[in-house]
């Protein structure tokens, strides 16, 4: 094929020199430099050594390091690179008062490394590599509400300076290496952090298309693990042998055999906690149910229909949220959204003595004979429906119910109960069972019914039939109608009571019909004398006390914590090569699990066909963190360098293969890697070394025509520091902090800067709110994949479907508009302005000085002071801060 040939030609030229020498010579796969290793074994690498590596190359080009930047520039640079936040005002003012500036600088490094915002800053870099988000992505983009635990894990790990090898092992195989440790389980959120195609893998009915979606899902996982840890583009070998690196298709599928049984799923953090909780609940429920039954009988409070629908005995053992699928009669706990397409007028029995069964009604304009019991008796008189329903019949509310309240009462509280009967559904109760349980022939139903969907033109119909005869009917029931009383006394012969809701002919959307506090009770009132009444009261109180005592331990029980991670089977499915990546064309024998055969010093085989899933992942993790693996340490020290200089020594941080770049300073890269391993993989220790170099501390400013610019325009040799524009998230945090509004609440579920609407594809509408919960650091943002926050996207926040090893920075007119006019900027301009007014009192000069200190970490010069003061006097403080929050100096770090 023509196109492929061109690629080959291009590649051939590209790696001519390397391919002549053979694969073995590619720098990244060679062992770490043995000479440097010897040197470091006897003497630790110092910041001066790092400078020496840099200066050596500069000298060869006749260049030298730029002079040291001023303390004010350095504290700002340091604070942003380590914390992603501006330095505190007090710190800036104190900085220059120290006599020994170098010592002061080193102390700042230590202080920032210790601050908790350090982990928040580093986590952003790491989550970029994990393409972490809080929704699944793809078409339906549903919520992933427990994903944040992994985000917190990353922040905490950086803050603790967790050894990097352990950090990786936990994220790849923590759940099987240390299953008893919560942290190690949560760490595997890494494997699941990327997007997941719910429609493709679950909703879709075509097996071919499901296999395809699944293959891409695993590819995403493999790509993430291999590119993050060893900067290798294994994914290029899915459809054909890698065009540049010696990775065959077989190698790719061998690697796939390691991941093959992993599925993204919500998991319990601590499975043991769940089991013990469940045991305790069951134990207590058993004890209370008898007591409750006795109590309710005495009170004649009746059997609760909602409780029965929720799997209970009618006396309170049922569970809110449990329900019955009207298509099958089976019990359902999962939320459903659209039971569609469904079979109609088919009666399914339910495993409960009180419930005869359920169905989805379709009345064909009143003509249809709708079976209402298992013996096939039918009822008529129901209108035509849309032949589907939204959710199960539940101990309510139903899934995504508009509101649990109606007529001023919240029916999830104060002992109230809802029986959710979303249109179109029907349920038949067996009155005989109620008579037996209540030991009476006189039964009555008492309840209210209402439309719990939203206001407007939405409505539904409600029907009650007894033995196929209509006894109750409300047509066009709307929210505004409030609650309707339902009181029905049954004859002694009545056998079946059927509750039905239908959509009123306008589609079933919003038709959340609920019966409230629906009970069947004895309609005969016992006549008691005063003695008997007193005795009865005593009995009731005594029972209540006993129930309370027995169930007290439940109050202390918390729901088991969950996180979004992966689950796996004990054994892995067979994996074969897929011809051209096509899931329908398997070729060859099943493959044994293996990693990529790039490194001659390590065995790439990870087991045989029988090796359990857990062991496969453990071996891969250990292969990656083996100190002999030269890639892992090189890759992470290069990332550290990039995080502090804007570019790595290798500027393709997630591709150390032949398609990537050569390192600008290979010896320095190896020296840093070796020192990292020697320091027990402490990232902070290597960062401390890097940040204490003259190279880091030099100026970034340069004038047009500088010598360095002529000889090394790209600054590969580092004759200056790189000025950097802040990333989207840092901009947001910075703006928040200007007016003193940054909320430093750490950890936990993220803040949601959008209005969420449940729908087939949920709708996320972004809002700017004057609300402290919204003022947390951007790392705690609830990240939505398919509907990203437009303000942040405009400022180059990357697409969360992508692994982002390196942020790109663009400059656009839309950015200017966003920063000049967006509600968020204006809101915090007001806070900034109010802060200056308060602190600077009415002194305009002091207001200007404060603003410069906060925004630029420096004082204004005389000219700036005059011009700014004049501007404030003529145009006001608001206009002034708006200009500051748009200025280049604000967004660029020297």
């Amino acid at each position, binding site marked *: 094929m023509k196109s492929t040939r061109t690629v080959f030609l291009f590649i051939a030229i590209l790696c001519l020199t390397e391919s002549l020498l053979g694969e073995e010579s590619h720098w990244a796969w060679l062992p770490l430099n043995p000479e440097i290793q010897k040197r470091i074994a006897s003497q630790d690498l110092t910041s001066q050594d790092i400078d020496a590596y840099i200066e050596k190359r500069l000298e060869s080009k006749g260049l030298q390091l730029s002079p040291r930047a001023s303390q004010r520039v350095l504290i700002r640079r340091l604070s942003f690179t380590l914390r992603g936040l501006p330095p505190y005002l007090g710190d800036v003012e104190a900085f220059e008062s120290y006599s020994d500036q170098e010592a002061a600088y080193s102390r700042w490094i230590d202080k920032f490394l210790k601050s908790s915002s350090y982990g928040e800053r580093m986590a952003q870099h790491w989550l970029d590599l994990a393409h972490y988000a809080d929704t699944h992505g793809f078409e339906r983009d549903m919520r992933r509400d427990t994903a944040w635990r992994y985000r917190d894990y990353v922040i905490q790990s950086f803050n603790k300076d967790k050894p990097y090898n352990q950090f990786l092992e936990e994220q790849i195989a923590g759940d099987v290496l240390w299953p008893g440790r919560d942290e190690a389980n949560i760490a595997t959120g890494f494997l699941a952090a990327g997007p997941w195609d719910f429609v493709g893998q679950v909703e879709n009915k075509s097996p071919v298309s499901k296999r395809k979606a699944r293959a891409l899902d695993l590819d995403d996982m493999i790509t993430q693990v291999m590119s993050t840890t060893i900067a290798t583009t294994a994914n290029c070998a899915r459809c054909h042998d890698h065009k540049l690196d010696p990775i065959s298709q077989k190698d790719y599928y061998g690697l796939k055999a390691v991941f093959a049984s992993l599925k993204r799923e919500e998991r319990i953090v601590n499975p043991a906690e769940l089991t013990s909780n469940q045991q305790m609940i069951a134990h207590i429920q058993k004890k209370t149910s008898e007591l409750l039954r006795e109590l309710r009988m005495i009170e004649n409070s009746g059997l609760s229909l909602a409780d029965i629908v929720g799997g209970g005995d009618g006396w309170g053992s049922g569970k809110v949220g449990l329900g019955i699928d009207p298509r099958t009669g089976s019990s359902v706990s999962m939320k459903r959204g659209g039971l569609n397409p469904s079979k109609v007028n088919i009666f399914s029995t339910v495993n409960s003595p009180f419930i005869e069964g359920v169905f989805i009604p379709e009345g064909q304009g009143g003509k249809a004979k709708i079976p209402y019991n298992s013996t096939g008796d039918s009822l008529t008189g129901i209108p035509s429906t849309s032949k589907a329903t939204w959710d199960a019949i539940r101990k309510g509310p139903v899934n995504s119910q508009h509101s649990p309240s109606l007529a001023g009462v919240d029916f999830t509280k104060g002992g109230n109960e809802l029986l959710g009967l979303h249109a179109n559904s029907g349920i038949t109760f067996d009155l005989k069972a109620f008579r037996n349980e209540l030991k009476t022939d006189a039964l009555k139903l008492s309840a209210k019914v209402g439309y719990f969907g939203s206001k407007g033109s939405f409505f539904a119909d409600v029907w009650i039939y007894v033995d196929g005869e209509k006894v109750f009917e409300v047509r066009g029931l709307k929210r505004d109608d409030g609650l309707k009383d339902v009181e029905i006394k049954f004859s002694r012969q009545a056998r079946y009571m059927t509750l039905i809701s239908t959509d009123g002919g306008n589609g079933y959307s919003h038709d959340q019909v609920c019966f409230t506090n629906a009970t069947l009770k004895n309609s005969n009132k016992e006549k008691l004398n005063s003695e008997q009444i007193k005795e009865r009261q005593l009995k009731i109180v005594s029972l209540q006390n006993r129930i309370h005592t027995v169930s007290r331990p439940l109050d202390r029980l918390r729901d088991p914590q969950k996180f979004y991670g992966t689950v796996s089977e004990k054994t892995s499915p067979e994996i074969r090569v897929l011809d051209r990546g096509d899931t329908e064309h398997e070729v060859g024998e099943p493959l044994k699990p293996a990693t990529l055969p790039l490194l001659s010093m390590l065995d790439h085989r990870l087991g045989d066909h029988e090796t359990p899933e857990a062991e496969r992942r453990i071996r891969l993790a250990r292969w990656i963190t083996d100190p002999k693996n030269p890639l892992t340490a090189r890759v992470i020290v290069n990332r550290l360098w990039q995080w502090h200089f804007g570019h790595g020594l290798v500027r393709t941080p997630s591709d150390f293969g032949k398609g990537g770049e050569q390192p600008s300073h290979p010896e320095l890269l190896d020296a840093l890697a070796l020192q990292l391993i020697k320091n027990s993989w402490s990232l902070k220790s290597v960062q401390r070394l890097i940040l204490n170099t003259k190279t880091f501390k030099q100026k970034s400013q340069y004038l047009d025509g500088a010598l360095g610019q002529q000889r090394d325009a790209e600054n590969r040799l580092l004759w200056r520091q*790189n000025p950097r524009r802040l990333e989207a998230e840092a901009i947001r945090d910075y703006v928040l902090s200007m007016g003193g509004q940054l909320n430093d609440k750490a950890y936990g579920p993220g803040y949601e800067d959008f209005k969420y609407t449940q729908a087939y594809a949920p709708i996320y509408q972004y809002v700017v709110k004057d609300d402290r919960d919204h003022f947390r650091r951007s790392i705690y943002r609830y990240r939505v994949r398919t509907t990203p926050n437009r303000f942040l996207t405009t400022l180059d926040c990357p697409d969360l479907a992508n692994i982002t090893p390196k942020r790109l920075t663009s400059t*656009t007119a839309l950015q200017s508009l966003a920063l000049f006019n967006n509600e968020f900027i204006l809101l915090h301009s007001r806070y900034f302005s109010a802060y200056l007014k308060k602190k600077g009192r009415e002194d305009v000069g002091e207001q200007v000085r404060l603003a410069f200190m906060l925004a630029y970490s420096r004082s204004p010069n005389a000219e700036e002071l005059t011009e700014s003061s004049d501007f404030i006097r003529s145009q006001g403080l608001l206009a002034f801060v708006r200009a500051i929050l748009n200025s*280049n100096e604000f967004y660029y770090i020297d």
Partner: protein
Amino acid sequence: MSTPIYHSSFSRRGFLQLTGGGFGALALNCLLADPSGSKTHHAPKAKRVIHIFCPGGMSQVDTFDYKPALEKRAGQPFDPTGKLQFFASKPGKCQPSYWKFRQHGESGRWMSDLFPRLATCVDEMAFLYSMKSETALHGPACFMMNTGQSLPGFPSMGSWISYGLGSETQDLPAFVVLPDPSGLPPGGIINWGAGFLPSVYQGTGFNTRKGQSPIEDLFVNEARHKEFSKKDRATLNFLNKLNAQHQKTRSGNKDLEARIQAYELAARLQSSAPEATSIESEKESTQNLYGLDHKDTQAFGRQCLLARRLAERGVRFIQIYCGAENTTAKKIRPNWDSHEDLVRDHGYWGKVLDTGASALLKDLKARGMLDETLVICTTEFGRQPGAQGGKGRDHNPGAFTSWMAGGGVKGGVGYGKTDELGFKAVEDVIQSHELHATVLHLLGIDHERLTWYHNGLEQRLSGFEGKGVIGEVLA
């Protein structure tokens, strides 16, 4: 001004991706590119593209792809073996087109009665009958049609084109998207995302709701922030002073200069965007041509008319969505995804598309713009020739029809064939890759030479597996 096309991917990569912050200035150059300065790989036939996207999956057998055999087999089981399983159902009986097919124009191309107005344009249109998709899922299939890949995270066609050619205008973005006013298509705004390309190349979604500002944050919210807006000009002047002072000691850093220019461009957008979108200034007869006088057709008609106005003003790539996402259940499906009642939903959307798209073609032609404006119309996949339930059709990634017209396209031709029932493309089978290669070709770009390095590969819009440009539809 620099040359926006990068002949050697490697030098471009060196320049753009690897240099210290050198990117901002260049990105701005693309937005501000001088039209005469832009150099293409070969002489372009089209200067700009209008892309109509019909999300949900338009049925080929009810619209463009005439299948007499389906009429003969009407009522017989589509899959007697019972082995086939589609996205949501097993196939029912063979269901011929709900609308009668007729031949039209000098070319005699077939079109169904669903499109009476487009039928009068067939001699301008080239039909691609043999398109297929890798996937039967809306989101991934939309991504595929827009980016060439079924996974999210890749740059859309409009992004690649603005990266390659920059803008024709200094006053408007190079890539504008006009979503259905009722909502976003499946997969959301990343359908016009820049993927791994710099965000400067992402599509700018215009608000297409009547009476609302076309661009977010174009102006300060007057009602809430009057004290800001009345100081706009003075604030900008002061901002320029601050920036000029800052730049004095940093003249080497061109990004700073670019950021200053971006504020100038933003100010120009504030006047150009409202002007470009004020369709009320159009003659009544023009408004009526686009169906603005009818409640069903007015929304899409507005989008089409807006597209023509933006094209006139030099926007390089304009994408129009004819339909939204499958949101909550409505009387009529919010897009072409006609599972349960095809006559109802295709009937509605067919009239919408027919009115807007035919008006666009005729209007462009009348203004002499059709020759250099490439109009394409796609969907993400087709629908099954066998019925779903009683009246619907399920997803069919095996066959669908796209059409192209204008800028360098040979009118009245058809390319490729589906089998006799319209179930699978069988002759000259193509995917998004070939369509994308052809669009790039018409714009003067060699699709193999417009690349960007990402995740181990020099990525390109047209992928590596495609057959390249579809020569048969070139004029």
